[in-house]
């Protein structure tokens, strides 16, 4: 079954990519704007900046120096934004009649943010972000594990070393001047991609994009960064946390998004830990009952990926037992590959996920977001079918080779997260790691 997201694309004179997709099912349009900047563009000592900046984008711009939410919510719109290591996105899903309003506001904050930026807004949003950090990381069980893993996987000067939320210390040291500099460097038409998906005619969408964004400056060219990372030897780490049950994380370097072996490792992650029939769930949770849950992901990003397995022990079980079982299953996959049935199942699930993603025009993961993701990372909004085809092409042989290349021949970082005072449950000889 061939499936597409039909679209039209134009690039404005200032470099802004505009992508339009018509879908008239609902009287709504999804506006989606990606800036190709994320925490990977930060530097040590100034972490957390891209995300703090995203917050400031909702605090008003020169010609509408009030909150960004009220006019749009009161027009029946839904809106949000998010930041990760590679990009920052902003979206509004609005009734068709409010499309002009959304574009007016998005373009005002692209063109005229700085005149409205004050020290007071800055201080307030920094407090909000510090609260976000406490709520989602510090006060959440296992919440700091991801931060510790990235720090151990990538050297201190690598852009994936620090977390997008940033360190509390850097956030407290951030200055308003840094914000200005950041905006001037990264927030302009030439570094952005705009998609309009939904109840709008293509020609009208292009006209509106030109009207609101065409007059904005292109801005300086953004240099794409590249950085390699590998581990020369395995690392064995330990963290005590306010948790009832210990959890083991194992993490390897893996291919970047859309790179060779990326799709293979996605399927491998499914075979290992997606659903009850997956190898690790079946063995550890269903049969031996020494774990309460297990997950595996190929976390692929623009410059590099991480293949990560996480497994929570059942009460009374120590992590070495889980470690041996997990590594055994990985080795087995590297030697013999998935069965034909496992591949078929993995591909069926992946295919369905691709179709489910076509159900919404906007928001996180909707069609507008998808078009921008493809445009930003591979320069082609129509990458949908190529992307999907990668999974149909996965073979047992290819998956086994990917496992050998990335997981068997390379050292991992292991992290034992154990209840306070229960280091005896961790992998032996682990060294303690702290996250500030």
């Amino acid at each position: 079954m061939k499936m597409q997201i039909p679209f039209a694309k134009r690039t404005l004179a200032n470099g802004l990519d505009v992508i339009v997709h018509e879908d008239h099912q609902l009287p709504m349009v999804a506006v989606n704007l990606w800036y190709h900047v994320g925490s990977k563009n930060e530097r040590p000592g100034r972490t957390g900046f891209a995300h703090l900046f995203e917050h400031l984008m909702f605090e008003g711009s020169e010609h509408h120096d009030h909150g960004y939410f009220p006019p749009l919510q009161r027009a029946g719109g839904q809106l949000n934004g998010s930041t990760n290591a590679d990009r920052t996105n902003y979206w509004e899903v609005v009734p068709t009649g409010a499309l002009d309003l959304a574009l007016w506001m998005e373009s005002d904050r692209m063109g005229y943010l700085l005149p409205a930026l004050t020290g007071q807004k800055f201080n307030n949003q920094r407090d909000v972000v510090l609260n976000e950090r406490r709520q989602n990381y510090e006060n959440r069980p296992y919440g700091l594990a991801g931060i510790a893993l990235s720090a151990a996987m990538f050297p201190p000067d690598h852009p994936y070393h620090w977390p997008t939320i940033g360190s509390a210390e850097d956030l407290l040291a951030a200055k308003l001047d840094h914000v200005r500099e950041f905006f001037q460097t990264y927030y302009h038409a030439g570094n952005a991609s705009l998609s309009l998906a939904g109840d709008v005619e293509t020609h009208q969408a292009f006209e509106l994009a030109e009207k609101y964004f065409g007059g904005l400056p292109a801005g300086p060219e953004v240099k794409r960064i590249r950085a390699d990372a590998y581990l020369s030897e395995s690392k064995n780490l330990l963290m005590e946390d306010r948790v009832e049950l210990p959890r083991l994380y194992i993490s390897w370097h893996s291919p970047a998004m859309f790179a060779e072996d990326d799709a293979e490792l996605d399927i491998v992650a499914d075979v290992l830990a997606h659903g009850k029939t997956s190898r690790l769930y079946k063995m550890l949770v269903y049969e031996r009952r020494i774990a309460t849950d297990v997950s595996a992901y190929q976390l692929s990003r623009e410059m590099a990926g991480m293949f990560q397995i996480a497994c929570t022990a059942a009460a009374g079980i120590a992590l070495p037992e889980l470690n041996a079982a997990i590594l055994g299953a990985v080795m087995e996959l590297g030697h013999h590959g998935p069965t034909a049935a496992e591949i078929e199942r993995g591909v069926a699930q992946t295919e369905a996920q691709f179709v489910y993603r076509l159900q919404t025009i906007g928001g996180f993961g909707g069609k507008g977001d998808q078009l921008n993701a493809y445009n930003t990372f591979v320069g082609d909004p129509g990458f949908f079918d190529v992307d999907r085809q990668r999974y149909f092409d996965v073979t047992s042989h290819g998956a086994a080779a990917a496992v050998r290349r990335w997981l068997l021949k390379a050292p991992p970082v292991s992290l034992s997260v154990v209840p306070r005072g229960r280091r005896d449950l961790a992998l032996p000889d682990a060294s303690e790691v702290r996250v500030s």
Partner: protein
Amino acid sequence: MTVDRSRLPVPGADRPFHFPRIVKRSLGNGLELRAVRHRSVPVVSMVLLVPGGSSVDPADCHGLVSITAGLLDEGSRGQSALEIADRVARIGGDLDVEVGMDAVAVALTTLDRFFDTGLELVHEIVTAPNLANDDFNRTRNLRLERLRQMKDHPAAIAERAFARVLYGSHPYGHLSLGSETALTSMGVDAARALHAALFTPAGSTLVIVGDRAEQELLDRAAAMFDSWRAAASPMMIDRMAALVPPSSTPQTGLAVIARPGAAQSELRIGHVCAPRSTPDYHALLILNTILGGEFVSRLNVNLRESKGYTYGVRTGFNLRRGLGPFVMTTSVGTEVTGPAIQEALGEIRDIAGDRPATELEVQQAFASLSKGYPRGFETAGQVARSVSQLALHNLPDTYFEEFVPRLAQVTADNVSSAARQYLTPAKMSTVIVGDLDKIHASLPGPGLGPHQVLATDF
């Protein structure tokens, strides 16, 4: 083309939207069928709604409904849990068994070409689960581990304590997962008896949404479910028990669950409030939107945008078949716990008193709720769930069509009197999960009375 940046563009008129047409059929066994045609992508969604969720748990058996529902996809008709999971995976199915306070919903979304297989799966797991002893024990142990892990989650601890503080021994006083004591003492026989008593065609509703003619959707569903017969059960369940109001036992004004070293304080504030059937439902929606229902609500603007106390705060009237609660939910910095509670209670007091909702606020809340309304009908799954809610709350088929016109009739006076009638700050309970030693000094004394310290597994 130049842009006039001196003022914001005024949104144009709403384009018409037609709400889903619901086609009905009743089967001889009492099962109600609903079908809706939805033409976006080749996907079909179905929801089987069985009234009586965790509120029909027997008093000494909290968690029984949830574990029984959880066992549905742990093996059926002699096949193991792994075989069932394999069949779901092969159709790329998204299967979800959700246990609410008022109902159990078995939901499946799959690709259109697997419609028949999907229907067969739902039928099989609901009508012929194995309910085997070994699967029961395995599932129970996983749930006991989850209860242990809940102690790590401030939000989960707060939810559990809040339900108990508000409802005591009422059917809404416990969460669906139940308690360690109850789970440990229950056996598979109880699950079998409950399954027979709860999962009956009479009273249940099956909603199917997909891109096929409604009659075809109904025909296939009827062919599959026509032979479903309720089994005899030694257990009596009372689906009406939750409709009895909770006893007005002495209120706990302020309860604290100590969490030394917590980075934040998790808060819940509220009281028992109203049933879904209240005639003031639309006024309550507007009231909630103004008070804490959206980003620009009074509470979020005050606590997040102006004070920087929190990453976010929201309120809700969680209306149910019986009396549901009003609740404010947030997580705040440890050092501002006391002031945050005072501010929150102040906002609630104000909207029910000295600073009632204004005309403008009501208009704005109406716009927020009405203009985006079609968004809730974008996916087949959303439509199926919405239609199943009509069945649960006995709402007419014209409900969606009438929603906006009815909302438009709500006046500022209606909202103010709803606030006075449904919000009583003096009777609200506050639950805090946080570092008791550090927040102690900042706790509000007057008005809330002395705090009561609760155990984590309370």
